[in-house]
């Protein structure tokens, strides 16, 4: 056996061996989807697709599931998960909205405006920002940002106006969005920078030859050329933001509540839960079959969104390869 390995390999066997590894990666994806879907099936069997909708108290439903025995009655599977789906969408959308201008402007700064030494520092800064672990972000959020919001930003009138509905502790929408935006900014910056660098210099020179200043050239030519990259950056950052679990579970307050825009500024400080943070919060209850099915249903929803977004991002990035952008 060893001798067979040591001798020169015929090409065909090498191709098959290496191809098997590649195929295994595909099978992993397929396996993931099948396993999660199979575990989530009871929720679909009992609720259809209406578990995505709203109705009743999600907290009560989850508690019921947690308290049922090994053979839960059909009623225990009742689930209407809209509050946390709404929470997920809200947090993700706001974080992407905050991160996009920051990422776009700082990419322009890095590639077009910064002096060379500064540029090198910026690359380091972005890489470091990308590699701060989410639990460290969560720690900073819960020990620094949350107390700050609690003491300085929430007014007493906001506290009293929400009495009985939600307790404002500082943990909630605003700090979550802020930290999440910082976490997804480096992804966007990396993708946008790659595309900016790849824009042919002649295009910029053409604009310059027409007599516009640097920023006009950036806005009229460069930014237009990299529009697909910007969309890809948004899509991939959305995928990352949707799935962030640990940080959100630490900073968002972890209460089944959906921030109500009707509350005005106070809604920024209201606590919430997202799909991913709910999974983390309840992962110990997985021995209860009904709750397990619920958590896997949430995981399936996340997996499905990640699937759609990744494929979308991949397809958007394809035309960029024309310009040798290896995003």
């Amino acid at each position, binding site marked *: 056996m060893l001798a067979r390995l040591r001798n020169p390999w015929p090409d065909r066997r090498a*191709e098959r061996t290496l191809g098997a590894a590649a195929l295994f990666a595909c099978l992993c994806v397929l396996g993931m989807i099948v396993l999660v879907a199979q575990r989530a099936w009871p929720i679909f069997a009992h609720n259809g697709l209406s578990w995505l909708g709203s109705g009743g108290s999600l907290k009560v439903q989850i508690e019921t599931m947690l308290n049922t025995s090994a053979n839960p009655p059909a009623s225990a599977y009742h689930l209407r998960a809209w509050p946390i789906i709404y929470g997920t969408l809200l947090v993700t959308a706001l974080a992407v909205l905050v991160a996009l201008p920051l990422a776009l402007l700082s990419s322009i*700064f890095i590639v077009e405006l910064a002096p060379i030494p500064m540029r090198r520092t910026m690359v380091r*800064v972005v890489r470091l920002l*990308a590699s701060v672990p989410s639990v460290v972000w969560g720690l900073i959020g819960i020990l620094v940002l949350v107390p700050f919001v609690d003491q300085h930003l929430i007014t007493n009138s906001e506290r009293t106006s929400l009495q009985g509905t939600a307790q404002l502790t500082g943990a909630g929408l605003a700090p979550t969005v802020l930290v999440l935006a910082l976490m997804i900014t480096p992804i966007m910056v990396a993708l946008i920078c*790659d595309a900016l660098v790849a824009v042919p210099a002649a295009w910029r020179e053409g604009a310059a030859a027409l007599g516009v200043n640097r920023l006009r050239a950036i806005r009229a030519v460069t930014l237009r050329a990299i529009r697909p990259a910007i969309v890809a950056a948004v899509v991939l950052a959305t995928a990352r933001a949707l799935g962030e679990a640990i940080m959100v579970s630490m900073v968002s307050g972890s209460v089944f509540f959906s921030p109500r825009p009707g509350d005005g500024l106070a809604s920024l400080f209201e606590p919430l839960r997202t799909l991913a943070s709910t999974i983390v919060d309840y992962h110990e209850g997985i021995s209860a079959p009904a709750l397990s099915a619920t958590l896997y249903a949430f995981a399936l929803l996340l997996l499905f969104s990640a699937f759609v977004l990744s494929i979308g991002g991949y397809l958007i990035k394809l035309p960029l390869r024309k310009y040798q952008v290896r995003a």
Partner: protein
Amino acid sequence: MSTLVSQPGERPARTRGRGSSIRTWRLSDALVLVAAWGAGLTLCVVVAAVVIYMGVRGVEYVSPALVFSRPAAGLAQNQTGGFLDPLLGTLLLTAVAVAVAAPLAICSALWLVEYGRPRWLTRVVESAIEIVAGTPDIVIAFVGLALFQLHLFAWVSEVGEGGGVTGKSFLAAGTMMSLIALPPIFVAVRNGLQGVPAHMREAAFALGKTRIATIRRVLVPSVRTNIATGVTLGVSRIIADTAIVVVLLGDTLRIEPQAHGGLPGLGVLKGTGSSLTSYIYDNSPAGEAGAPQKAYAAAFVLLLFVLALNLLVERIGRAQARSSGFVAAVEGIV
């Protein structure tokens, strides 16, 4: 206006021409310029604030006694010990995950670039890896739980009371962690291979080498730096991940080896433990223990690892950046 001829890396000296002074610009252009500088500096300030704050807190709370003592159950904070076990857990987990991910990722990348037949299959493989890269870690953790609770994999993990398979062990967590490390390694190796000039392959073929011999003698040596970069990026993903550890490693206080009949060390791999990240999570106000000082100390040690890995990526990438410019420097953040 040679100002705008900006090749990455080598920019000609700036000459002052008409329109290059911000005073003559329209207000909106000037505002965007200021905003861009502001955004860049904001990122610098945020990173500096995070690093300095964690550094100050870390130096304040970290001590050799904390790093080198094992965690213990106790009522008072001075009885609960340090984080030696989580530290070792992080290292062990990294070793297992890299051992699984690196060969898989390198082989897939080699197949994709060097063989890549049929074409449609390469598309499928590439998008499959994109999907893995985009899958949230908590979902990967739950997939692992579903997988390793199957009786087929009972030999991998801890056996709970009554013979139930818990699906929690270093092997289980490491295998699932490898999915997180797979995409960066794959992308780094693939890009490296695509960057190898075709004439190197042609020269090898002209000498009568087979494809696999070319791969072994020419291509793999020439993408060594890419492999190193990819593995380093993968490692920094692994040590930063919390969700998989919390769900799949059992998150026990100490490394708990399982009884086993076979190889030495297998017991530890089959057993449960924790990592620095899960230690931070548990000791933060969100967790059960609630000892922020210990969380800060562990976060400081974790950040030191992260900084070291960042430096390593840069050191490895320096030789590469000379040849391929800016792209290589930014690559790997995603």
